[in-house]
């Protein structure tokens, strides 16, 4: 896993952005950008070369699932690994995210180990 990759953390709660940032920092990531909803995240994605998106589902303005669909339908962005980090853990949510092309799914509450495991699984190849 390349620790120099640029990670976009999208969540309307600063608490969760800070928790994820702390975990990523612990494992050596240094380039992290935050956005508080899908709309703000999309702007960042158009401007920066983002290598990984970690995104909440339930957010005002633009929910995570809409951001995922927007990313996957954009030729420039469609290959970016996109991980949903969300309290929405019902089957329909997971199926919808998989259909929309999510790379992995982390259910809140989660431990640092769980998040690291999921990232390792994505980048091991």
């Amino acid at each position, binding site marked *: 896993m390349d620790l120099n990759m640029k990670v976009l953390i999208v969540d309307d709660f*600063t*608490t969760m952005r800070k928790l994820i940032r*702390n975990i990523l920092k612990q494992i050596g990531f240094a380039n992290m950008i935050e956005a508080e909803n899908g709309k703000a995240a999309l702007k960042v994605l158009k401007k920066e070369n983002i290598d990984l998106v970690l995104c909440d589902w339930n957010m*005002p303005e633009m929910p995570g699932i809409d951001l995922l669909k927007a990313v996957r339908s954009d030729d420039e962005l469609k290959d970016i690994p996109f991980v949903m980090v969300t309290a929405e*853990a*019902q089957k329909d949510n997971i199926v919808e995210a998989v259909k929309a092309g999510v790379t992995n799914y982390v259910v809140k509450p989660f431990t640092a180990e769980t998040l690291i495991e999921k990232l390792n699984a994505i980048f091991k190849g």
Partner: protein
Amino acid sequence: MKRTYRTLNDCEMQHNAEVGLFTRPSNFIIMEGQTLDVKIINPFINATLNVLETMAFIKSDAQKPYLKKDNVAKGDVSGVVGFTGETNGTVFITFDESCILKIVSNMFGEQINEINDEIKDAVGELTNMISGQARKELEEIGKVFQGAIPSVVSGKNHEIKPLTKGPKIAIPFKTDFGNFTVEVSLESKS
């Protein structure tokens, strides 16, 4: 045939003090003419215990539940979230100052000494996680609910009005660092 119960306080309302879950042969209790489905309440208790232990490494002990008749919060800061589905309801989680300061300090790995915007934001996120976890467990028993985005209220003796009508049950929890209470209000079944 399902049995029903008349009050929360008599012997028919069995409370398992060890795990804090409602255990009885029926899924329903009747309070003041209104019916409350305990199968909907238990997942919120489980979710609360799980979220606080996973995110803040804090163990909580449930105390005896009671019927709450006013809207004055027991704690200093509260998260509120509504849910809709086969019935509508509201969940409140209200924390003592000492309890929430320890929870959020543990979550961030840094000492926080006052209820500030960071604490309020964390209460919102904790409420969001509890709502999500509870709805996941409810789905496993065939009850599908949608959750709203939580809001947070703070201050001494603040009021937390339910977003839905119906009886409100309060489940107090003790931790080594202070107390918190989970309140669940469910619209009555006809």
